[in-house]
C-alpha cells in the first residue's frame, strides 16, 4: 500500500513538472519610447525600428525611455513601471512553433486603460501608443525574440 502511494506521488510530481515544462521561456523585448514633435532627434537605440516609426507616424523625435528584455514564462505576468502611476503588464499565455500569444495591460493609477491580446511572430513588432507623455506620446514597442 505504501509503495502504491509513493508511486502515485511520483506520478503527480511528474505531471506537475510536465505542465510547467510545456511553456518554454520566451524572450520579449519591450521598449518604451517617447514620441514628440520637439526637435528631430531619433535615439540610436531605435535604429532597427526607425524606418517603421518614420513610415507610420508623423512625429519628428523619438526618445527611448526604457529598453527591457523580458524572460516570459507561461501565465506569469511581468509588470513594468513606465512613469508615475502608469505601468505595463505583459503575460505569456500561449506558445506555438513560430508565434507566441501575449496579454498586454496598460494601467494608469491602478485602473486598466488598455487590455489586449496579441499573437506575435518572430521578427515582428507590435506598437502600442497614444497615451500622452509630456509634450508627446508614449509608444510601447513589443518584439518577440524566439
Amino acid at each position, binding site marked *: 500500500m505504501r509503495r502504491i502511494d509513493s508511486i502515485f506521488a511520483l506520478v503527480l510530481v511528474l505531471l506537475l513538472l510536465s505542465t510547467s515544462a510545456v511553456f518554454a521561456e520566451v524572450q520579449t523585448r519591450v521598449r518604451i519610447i517617447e514620441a514628440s514633435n520637439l526637435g528631430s532627434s531619433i535615439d540610436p537605440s531605435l535604429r532597427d525600428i526607425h524606418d517603421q516609426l518614420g513610415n507610420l507616424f508623423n512625429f519628428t523625435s523619438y526618445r527611448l525611455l526604457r529598453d527591457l528584455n523580458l524572460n516570459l514564462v507561461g501565465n506569469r505576468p511581468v509588470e513594468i513601471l513606465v512613469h508615475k502611476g502608469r505601468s505595463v503588464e505583459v503575460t505569456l499565455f500561449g506558445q506555438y512553433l513560430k508565434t507566441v500569444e501575449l496579454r498586454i495591460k496598460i494601467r494608469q493609477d491602478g485602473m486598466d486603460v488598455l*487590455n489586449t491580446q496579441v499573437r506575435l511572430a518572430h521578427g515582428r*513588432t507590435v506598437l502600442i501608443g497614444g497615451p500622452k507623455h509630456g509634450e508627446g506620446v508614449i509608444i510601447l514597442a513589443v518584439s518577440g525574440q524566439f
Partner: protein
Amino acid sequence: MKDPCSSVSKLLEKYFDQEVTNKERSLVESHLRDCLTCQDELRSMEKLRDWVKAPIEEAAQEEEFPWVWQKIEREIRLQKRLTWWQSLRLWLDVSPLFKKKVWIPAVATAVVLLFITAQSIFKKTPSYPSPSVVEYVESQTYNVMIYESEKAKVTVIWLFEGPEQEAPIS
C-alpha cells in the same frame, strides 16, 4: 543343504515376466525340467495372467477406438473458451515482465510521456498561419485603432483620448 526350489521360486516370477538374465534363465529352466512343484507354480501364474488379460482384451475389442478420439475432440471443443480479457490476464500472470513492480512504473511513465507529448503536439503546432494579429482589445478610457502593415512587419494599436483627436499615423 539348501533347498533348490526356494532359490528358484524367487527367480520364477522374474522368469515369468521375462526379466531374468541368460544365466538365471538356464538355471530356472534346468530346475523346471525336474521339479513338478515349480512347474505347477509357473502354470498357476500363467492361468492368473490369462484370467486377468481375457476380459480386458474382450472389452478393448468391443470398443470402437475412432469414436473414442472423436469423443475426446468434442470434449475439448466443449470446454469453456476464455475471453480475451481472461487470456490477457493469464498471459500477464505468466510473463515476469508484467509483474506489478515492473508494469506499474512502466504504465506511470507511459502516461506522463503521453501527457507531455500530447501537450506539445496540441500546444506547439503552428495552427495560425498569419504572423501577428490583435486577438482582443478593450479600453474603457480610450478609443482604439488597429493598423497592421505586412510590408513593415508591424502592428499598431493606437489609443485616442477623444473622438476629436487626429491619428498621428501617416
